[in-house]
């Protein structure tokens, strides 16, 4: 069974600092997605990574995928308060099902 692990689960950052969220998964896959969820809201797509070495950037967020290591990272640069949210990674399995990590709850403090 495909398992997806994220760490850390909770992250408190100061504004202006950098940090990385890690997403490890258990089987071979070259399809990985990052989503954001604000409190009380549903999930919205951030990044789609569909090949080894893929890197995507949007504003202060950058995501990368290493399929050989079965690892994706979400790097936060110079954090600002409006990045506070829960971030999920999701991996597509052989059956095209999608399994999610437990989420990283990010809080950016002034």
């Amino acid at each position, binding site marked *: *069974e495909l398992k997806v692990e994220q760490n850390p689960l909770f992250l408190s950052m100061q504004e202006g600092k950098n940090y990385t969220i890690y997403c490890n998964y258990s089987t071979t896959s070259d*399809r990985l*997605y990052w*989503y954001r969820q604000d409190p009380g*809201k*549903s*999930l*919205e*797509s951030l990044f*789609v990574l*569909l090949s080894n070495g893929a890197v995507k950037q949007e504003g202060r967020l950058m995501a990368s995928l290493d399929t050989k290591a079965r690892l994706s990272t979400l790097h936060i640069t110079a954090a600002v308060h409006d990045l506070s949210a829960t971030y*999920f990674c*999701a991996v*597509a*399995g052989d*059956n*095209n*099902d*999608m*399994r*999610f*990590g*437990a*989420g990283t709850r990010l809080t950016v403090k002034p």
Partner: protein
Amino acid sequence: GAGVSQSPSNKVTEKGKDVELRCDPISGHTALYWYRQSLGQGLEFLIYFQGNSAPDKSGLPSDRFSAERTGGSVSTLTIQRTQQEDSAVYLCASSLAGGWAVSYFGPGTRLTVT
């Protein structure tokens, strides 16, 4: 609207009653997923449909849970004899091509079993 819709948005039911949750995916999306999210928790995979068939039912927590999809469109998730531990937000998502495409999520149905 062009997004995924779910109904009802909120449902309060008594323990032991049956409930039916509905998901209307984005038109043309062949893949449909159901997830469950308990308060402050991650997403628990329940079931995945490709068209009307469900290649993976492994996530359904018990035989009280069932789901169907008709016409490659609307899906219903049915929970029989609800228990308090069934209380959660049930999220539906659809995508164009299963794991090869972004999933778009509905707003969820908040189920409370009293």
